[in-house]
């Protein structure tokens, strides 16, 4: 049977063979330099055995405790009414305190100087990563003009990116986060 007459049904990805020699060269030369070193990092004995219990404890601490709903007694009704009264008094007091002592006007977010807000973010450990911020603020609702007052041209943006960004892949936010 002449095998050459049969068309080859197997395919390889485009450019596979072109990149193969470079990949092999990398693997061989690295192996020569490092000498096939084994794992150097160690873990404490029994660490993985105790890990499940540790994680379960951490998660149960995280979960909010839910109290079962019971029938409301007279005493509980009395307590609830008293709590509402205390909250009302505290809120009224808080409103009085938020008034400026100089102008007598109620203070709001707009009264804060930008420098005070910047100072707060600069010197308080917020512990929020960029992707957590991205989760909280949906980007579809944010326009660049919401953040920057002075308008700029597209060419300026491209110039900036060309000069300052080494790897354009870094600009992509992860999916599923």
């Amino acid at each position, binding site marked *: 049977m002449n095998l050459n007459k049969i068309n080859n049904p197997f395919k390889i990805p485009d450019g596979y063979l072109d*990149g193969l020699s*470079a*990949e092999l060269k*990398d693997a061989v*030369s*690295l192996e020569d*330099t*490092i*000498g096939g*070193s084994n*794992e*150097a*990092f*160690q*873990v*404490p004995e029994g*660490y*993985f055995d105790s*890990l*499940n219990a*540790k*994680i*379960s404890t*951490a*998660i149960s601490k*995280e979960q909010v405790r839910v109290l079962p709903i019971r029938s409301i007694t007279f005493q509980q009704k009395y307590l609830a009414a008293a709590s509402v009264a205390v909250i009302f008094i505290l809120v009224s007091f808080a409103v009085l305190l938020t008034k400026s002592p100089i102008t007598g006007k109620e203070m709001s977010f707009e009264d804060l100087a930008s420098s005070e807000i910047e100072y707060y973010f600069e010197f308080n*450990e917020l*512990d929020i*990563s960029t*992707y957590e911020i991205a989760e909280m603020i949906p980007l579809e609702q944010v326009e660049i003009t919401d953040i920057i007052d002075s308008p700029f041209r597209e060419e300026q943006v491209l110039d900036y990116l060309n000069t300052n960004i*080494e*790897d354009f*892949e*870094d600009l*992509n936010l*992860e*999916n*599923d*986060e």
Partner: protein
Amino acid sequence: MPSDLLRITAWIGRFLLNHSLVRKSKRYNAFVLIAEETLVAQLKQKDSQNQAFEFLVETYKERLYWHIRRIVLDHHDTDDVLQNTFIKIYRNIDGFKGESKLYSWMYRISTNEALSFLKTKSKKLGIPNETLLERTAGNLQEDVYFEGDTIQLQLQKAIATLPEKQKLVFNMKYFEELKYEEIAEILDTSVGALKASYHLAVKKIETLLKTTN
């Protein structure tokens, strides 16, 4: 009955994960997909959630541990990051839409957690991120959980000098032996870009190791 099923699936899952030859087969990939779908469904149901989560931790704890350890280097830091990773996975499993594979999603969370951890730590110490890593790699000799020889120590020091992305790609390819397609899904980038990053990383490591020897 569901607990027996989970136990059997756990055993098969661990067997498959621990055998690199099986990991490369098509049947393995099919099994992983089916097992993942079942697992995700069980993780989202309140009655099976705890057992399914235990299975998830049991199956992936070692792989995720080593992935994080190679980024943060210190065992105690790795322990913190690993616990946070599993807590995040538990909290956010309802938001997992199945657009990527479950393990890629978990790897991505652990990568982000590890990188965020390093950024917070370097900020607290008032030093740049790169300095922190180079310092940690430099102190590996005194680490009781590091038993590498001179070349392994130099290798870790060389890896610490790489840019973040090259470091991730190098660790995932060289130590964790992940395929480019798997790394591409985890880091949400193209296979071509990864090959270039790996090649650059290898060249830099070789040059560094040759100059120090």
